């Protein structure tokens, strides 16, 4: 049978299975291959909370969604067009999201009585007619995988484990993808030649099955997107942060120090940086978050490009330490990869509800710089920017990322190190004129390293006298220093480039976002602009200080909308500072926004007179 090839512009696929089923690998292999094929894309991995939940349980379902297109892609997609469900639990958890009429590829063998019960189905959904709204393709993926690797005489556990590549093979065929990247990957990944061969056979068998079986009458083609020429790679937010810090170290000439305590979803930055000791990176897995931030303070004092990485509960523990860093006026970057809170919350789910903690979570008037990354690739530049500000302004900078950005990957244009601006750092070396709390044009005090003869001095968390840094309880001095600590932030704002507005530069509505809402807002704004409304979109990188031009920009629009994955935090800051009637559009479900939600919110505010 000669099958039809249909051309489509955009497809969203979700791979879903047991956490042991290798869905994350499947997803990222499909991502890499799709990127190589020249599509634009965005991804969303969704892990279970458990390390290994019981096989077949709802709690153990692991998902990976990718949207790819010949057009620009802003989000991983609201409702997937295709759902690959490796077992009943995966179907149960994910079916509600599948687009009406969408394609469901189900691993029929996994729909055993036991698994069906376990997933909470009364009857087999593949048989009971409940899936009539979808294009259902039942394939005995497990069985066919076992057959494909039969000759290799693997034990059953190992053989069954190859089934994700069988599924990937099917999807590769469906979308006309080249398998070669994955073939290379399998070869490099599986040291055991038997396992390697088995996975290769499963992949091939899956592809072949798609091609030959009567199940599918057509395959699809997604044409190359118009992508700026250059060198690309896939990058996740945590990778990009790690690389950004390595780059900042190189650009500044400083040695990198990371003091950290593991916590989901920030740990990967520690893992990544720990593996680059060849670049002189010193990573210190501290006994807790307090020691982590304090060790970084000690390192900063000693001349390091000092970092500490954590998530919300860890940021709470670092509060006192960050206050100290602020008083010591030392450069320090604190990364908070936010997760759903409060308290332990939902560690594997995303949220952006630590903004106010970052702003105010310290005793006293304790302003620090706050900056947020808006996408995985943007993490790289945000990391460099945070480091630049920290060392040129001698100040702690809190960098906010989140679980979604951290774990999802996007194709990213690789920058050339040689073309990135250097980060100028100058240590104070002169005995003459040295005062520990004298200030330069940025109101930054001198960075004078231990080991510098004649520059011996003491700093501490007690209020200090202007210029000398000696302990001072003087009333006027305290007011002066308190205000200086705010003015120091203003110096950052004064040096920022004009704020970038996407969409319309004036008009009906300005949508202001920060962090991971970038993609959905962009998509939503573009969608509604098509119907004629004049809408601008500002994704704020700087949250403290705000850019100087923000007030004027807001005034150019009739309304301001602030979608956030929290119950309204940035919106509070904007309203308080500018007395602008910015409206909050909150969502707090441990999930990023969908394009449709943003569209809804925009329409709602535009319609409300």
């Amino acid at each position, binding site marked *: 049978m000669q099958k039809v090839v249909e051309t489509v512009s955009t497809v969203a696929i979700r791979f879903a299975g047991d956490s042991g089923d290798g869905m994350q690998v499947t997803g990222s292999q499909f991502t890499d291959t799709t990127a190589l094929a020249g599509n634009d894309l965005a991804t969303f991995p969704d892990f279970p909370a458990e390390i290994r939940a019981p096989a077949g349980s709802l709690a153990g379902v692991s998902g990976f969604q990718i949207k790819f297109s010949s057009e620009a892609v802003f989000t991983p997609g609201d409702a997937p067009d295709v759902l690959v469900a490796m077992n009943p639990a995966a179907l149960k958890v994910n079916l509600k999201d599948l687009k009406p009429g969408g394609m469901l590829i189900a691993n029929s063998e996994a729909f055993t009585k036991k698994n069906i019960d376990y997933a909470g189905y009364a009857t087999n959904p593949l048989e009971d007619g409940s899936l009539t709204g979808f294009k259902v393709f039942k394939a005995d993926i497990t069985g066919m995988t076992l057959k494909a690797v039969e000759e290799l005489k693997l034990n059953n556990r190992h053989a069954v484990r190859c089934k994700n590549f069988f599924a990937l093979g099917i999807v590769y065929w469906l979308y006309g993808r080249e398998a070669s990247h994955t073939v290379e990957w399998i070869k490099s990944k599986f040291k055991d030649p038997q396992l390697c061969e088995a996975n290769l056979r499963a992949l091939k068998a899956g592809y072949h099955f798609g091609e030959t079986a009567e199940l599918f009458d057509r395959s699809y083609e997604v044409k190359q997107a118009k992508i700026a020429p250059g060198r690309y790679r896939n990058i996740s937010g945590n990778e990009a942060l790690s690389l950004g810090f390595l780059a900042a170290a190189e650009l500044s000439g400083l040695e990198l120090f990371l003091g950290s305590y593991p916590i989901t979803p920030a740990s990967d930055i520690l893992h990544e940086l720990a593996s680059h000791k060849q670049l002189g990176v010193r990573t210190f897995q501290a006994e807790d978050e307090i020691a982590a931030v304090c060790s970084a303070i000690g390192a900063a004092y000693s001349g390091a490009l000092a970092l500490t990485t954590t998530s919300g509960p860890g940021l709470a523990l670092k509060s006192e330490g960050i206050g100290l860093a602020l008083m010591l006026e030392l450069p320090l970057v604190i990364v908070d990869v936010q997760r759903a809170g409060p308290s332990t919350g939902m560690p594997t789910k995303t949220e952006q509800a630590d903004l106010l903690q970052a702003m105010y979570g310290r005793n006293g008037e304790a302003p620090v710089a706050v900056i947020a990354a808006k996408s995985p690739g943007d993490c790289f530049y945000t990391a460099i920017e945070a480091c630049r500000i920290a060392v040129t302004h001698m100040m702690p900078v809190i960098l906010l990322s989140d679980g979604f950005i951290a774990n999802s990957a996007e194709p990213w244009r690789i920058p050339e190190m040689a073309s990135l601006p250097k980060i100028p750092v100058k240590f104070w070396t002169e005995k003459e004129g040295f005062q520990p709390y004298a200030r330069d044009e940025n109101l930054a005090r001198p960075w004078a390293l231990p*080991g510098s003869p004649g520059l011996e001095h003491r*700093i501490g968390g007690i209020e200090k006298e202007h210029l000398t840094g000696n302990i001072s309880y003087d009333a006027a001095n305290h007011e002066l220093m308190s205000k200086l600590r705010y003015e120091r932030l203003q110096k950052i704002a004064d040096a920022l480039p004009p704020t970038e507005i996407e969409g319309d530069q004036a008009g009906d509505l300005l949508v202001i976002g920060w962090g991971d809402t970038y993609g959905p807002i962009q998509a939503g704004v573009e969608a509604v602009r098509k119907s004629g409304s004049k809408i601008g979109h500002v994704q704020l990188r700087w949250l403290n200080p705000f850019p100087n031009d923000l007030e004027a920009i807001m005034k150019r629009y009739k309304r301001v909308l602030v979608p956030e994955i929290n119950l309204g935090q940035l919106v509070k800051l904007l309203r308080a500072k500018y007395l602008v009637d910015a409206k909050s559009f909150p969502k707090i479900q441990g999930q990023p926004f969908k394009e449709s939600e943003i569209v809804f919110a925009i329409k709602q505010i535009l319609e409300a007179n």
Partner: protein
Amino acid sequence: MRALNIYPQFQHTDPSTQTRKDFVTDQDVRWCPGCGDYSILAQVQRVMPTLGIPRENYVFVSGIGCSSRFPYYMETFGIHSIHGRAPAVATGVKAMRPDLSVWVVTGDGDALSIGGNHFMHVLRRNVDLKLLMFNNQIYGLTKGQYSPTSPVGKKAKSTPMGSIDYPIDPISVALGANGTFIARSFDVHASHLQNILKRAAEHKGTAFVEIYQNCNIFNDGAFSLLTEKETKSDHVIEIEHGKPLRFGKNLEKGIALDASLTPKVVDVASYGEDKLFVYDETSEIAALIVSRLHAPEFPVPIGVFRAVSRPSYDALLVDQIDRAKKGKRETVQELLDDGQWTVK
């Protein structure tokens, strides 16, 4: 690879020219008149110039407490950090800069109450820093609450009926954390303290020195049994490597172990000097046994309880970096390029 070297190089001070005065700052010392901290400061300022280290290479890191004001009075680099966290701050300093001589000054509350965890971890990691804990068995700066080293029954501001918390013995905790250098001295015993400080300075790794210190305002006389002329020789025993444990005005008393390894006080003449417990500062068991001698039943040991060698954290860290540099030689650009494809 790394193109820039932006770190300044200095002509260091010749350590042989340094005197005590070089280590005195222009700040008024703000401890209460009569506080034991003064004597400790004086001994430290006497010892520092003798160690062959240029003044600018010293960093004093402290937490919060009366004792933790110490760095302000040392004309060296210094950080007066936050309560309990000095070991963590100092770990960062030393991890970055193994060339520096890093000293932590802390109190019994700072080190063992809020800071107990960092205390334990710095010892087990054996970061090469010197940790001086001024133990006055009280919270001085907050005006007189009992501390983790205060004895049971101690009446203090927060314990009007007497403390019910069994105290922590800092030496025992340090041994439990497998510290490599552990010693004890007194504020007022100038020569002994100086010797201990020198030994601590020479040690590669975390050197923990407990210094009994009189807080004459909130806990006056806590150590008077050990410091008063009439009582001290019967209540203090100086332990020394390779020597039998003897004390008393004329060293007429000694410590021996009975069959069940329990220490007992014996009369040297009648018991026989050769049967006394001979101290070995490299033996963990010896340190463990002696660490459990408490007043008034036993004399209180001072001196070096333990001195053994184990690679320090910072040395191991540098070693890993050196090895890594010899191994794979990726640049940041190469890391960025990983998994690249080209769009034309």
